[in-house]
């Protein structure tokens, strides 16, 4: 019952904020808020791969790009006619439905790509795996640049802006709750075991290959969803949004937050999205200060802001009726 109440509460809160926020915030603040949400989805999804499983992936922007372009094309080809044919439903509902389908399509195709990239992780370890994911991300970017049907280097304009506060922060809630539940499940324990000692995990009967691929597929799925949200929020896609630097940005969030800490990833996603915005007034020095702060943070807190600990959000993750009030 308690969980159902929580779900209703979250849904109502999202709907209320969805209506309220665009009216009370200025457009710039609102845009930053939305980008924070998208970055949280990215960071938490990468945390599944890098933080939970200890598999070092530096091609997250590639999965994001796959999801972004797939969902954008889905909406342009199928979603818009669908919205038009659903004229009986109120517009936000019809658009939401189309967006949901597009996000699923983007997520699934990205997950397929994750499966493809996850397979070599059967053979490769550590840095070699890292460099394969990096290569994958770059190959995706070059392919996007060269496919004229999706705009090539000119980019893909005119994507309907269906992604509103509800969908972005709804996805944030879904990815956080899902990783939280995963962390406390058998599967999550298996992932942690692989991170801590792959050989020992294997000796204890954990199917390491299966779990590594699972982590990749899940991480890629949500990266694809984040890409879809990105596409439907900005209405425009360009391959240059998905460079190696974007992957690095997301890794920085995961490492800064503390490997494996979900709330850490969330916190770091907020900090690292806000930091460049806050630094806007200093113009030319902005990126210099950003990089200096990154270095100083890593030197002073190498285990990340949160270490592997979580902020107390226990009531979200604890199972059913046994839930106690947070201390």
């Amino acid at each position: 019952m308690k969980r159902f109440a929580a779900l209703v509460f979250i849904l109502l809160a999202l709907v209320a904020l969805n209506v309220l926020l665009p009216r009370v915030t200025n457009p710039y603040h609102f845009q930053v808020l939305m980008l924070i949400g998208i970055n949280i989805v990215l960071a938490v999804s990468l945390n599944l791969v890098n933080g939970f499983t200890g598999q070092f992936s530096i091609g997250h922007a590639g999965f994001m790009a796959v999801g972004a372009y797939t969902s954008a094309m889905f909406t342009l080809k199928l979603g818009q006619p669908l919205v038009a044919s659903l004229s009986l439903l109120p517009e936000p509902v019809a658009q939401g439905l189309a967006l949901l389908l597009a996000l699923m399509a983007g997520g699934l195709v990205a997950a397929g790509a994750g499966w493809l990239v996850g397979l070599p992780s059967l053979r490769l370890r550590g840095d070699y795996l890292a460099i394969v994911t990096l290569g994958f991300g770059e190959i995706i970017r070059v392919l996007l640049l060269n496919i004229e049907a999706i705009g090539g280097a000119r980019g893909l304009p005119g994507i309907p802006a269906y992604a509103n506060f509800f969908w972005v922060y709804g996805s944030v809630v879904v990815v956080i709750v899902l990783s939280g539940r995963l962390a406390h499940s058998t599967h999550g324990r298996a992932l942690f075991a692989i991170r801590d000692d792959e050989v020992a995990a294997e000796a204890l009967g954990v199917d390491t290959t299966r779990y590594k691929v699972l982590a990749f597929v899940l991480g890629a799925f949500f990266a694809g969803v984040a890409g879809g949200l990105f596409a439907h929020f900005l209405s425009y896609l360009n391959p240059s949004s998905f460079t190696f630097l974007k992957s690095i940005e997301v890794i920085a969030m995961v490492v800064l937050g503390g490997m494996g800490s979900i709330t850490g990833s969330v916190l770091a996603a907020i900090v690292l999205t806000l930091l460049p915005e806050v630094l806007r007034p200093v113009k030319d020095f902005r990126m210099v200060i950003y990089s200096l702060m990154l270095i100083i943070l890593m030197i002073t807190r190498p285990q990340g802001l949160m270490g592997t600990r979580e902020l107390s959000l226990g009531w979200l993750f604890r199972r059913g009726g046994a839930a106690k009030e947070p201390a």
Partner: protein
Amino acid sequence: MSEFLQQLVNGITWGSVYALIALGYTMVYGILRLINFAHGDVYMLGAFIGLYASRWFRAGENPNPFKALLVLLTSMVLSALIGMIIERLAYKPVRKSPRLSALITAIGVSLLLENGGVLLFGASPRFFPQIVAQENIPLGLGVTISNQQLIVIAVSFALMVALRWLVLHTKVGKAMQAVSHNHMAAALMGISVDRIITFTFMVGSALAAAAGVLVALQTPKIEPYMGILPGLKAFVAAVLGGIGNIPGAVVGGLIMGIAEVMVTGYLSPTYRDAIAFVLLIVILLVRPAGIFGKAVAEKV
């Protein structure tokens, strides 16, 4: 046929530049197990220091080999110092931290050098003075090589031979090998591990700076972001050859350069940036430890 040979010559020229950068990656990795992402930016700094040095020595006015050599050496020495400073200030404090934290630090340093470069040198491309007047030398079969290309290849290989001698036959080189095997055992043998690590960074940075100046000889447009892609590709070259392995880095670099030039020439220049990574994935699937890398059995 002559077109193919011409492409091969161009490919070897590019490849030797990649090899020079890859050597720095591979040495630092061999000793610290750290992917030094800032290495490509040291290459950029090398080119810019070369630019200012050639102005200082007026090397562009009446080019002579002595001045060009002076420019190259100045850039190498100053970049070695920069490499030392980077290692001392940024990497040494995170040496005992989890490897990923060290990696993020390296990324931070890379961003710092790029954006600091924009601040210092401006974001728009600058032109490197011609410190060697261009001449084309026919090689027969319709193949020509410019004297600049020849210099790139000759200097690269001279530096590689020097590095090989340094690592295999000098005391400091043997210390480097010892540290790359085991830090603690090396320390117990009386090797100052800290100093060897710093020295490795200095050598790697000097090689990257040389690569920067050599590239600027040929393609004189230099800008603060020029190090990102060559840096990544050189790293890929190092992995291709088996990271931590010095001859592997050279072979990897050459393969990379030749493959890129061939793709540009015969397929499409837009796929040039992808070929490096396709090659990498194919080779790693067949030989997971790279061409010369040894598969290390995991001890439990």
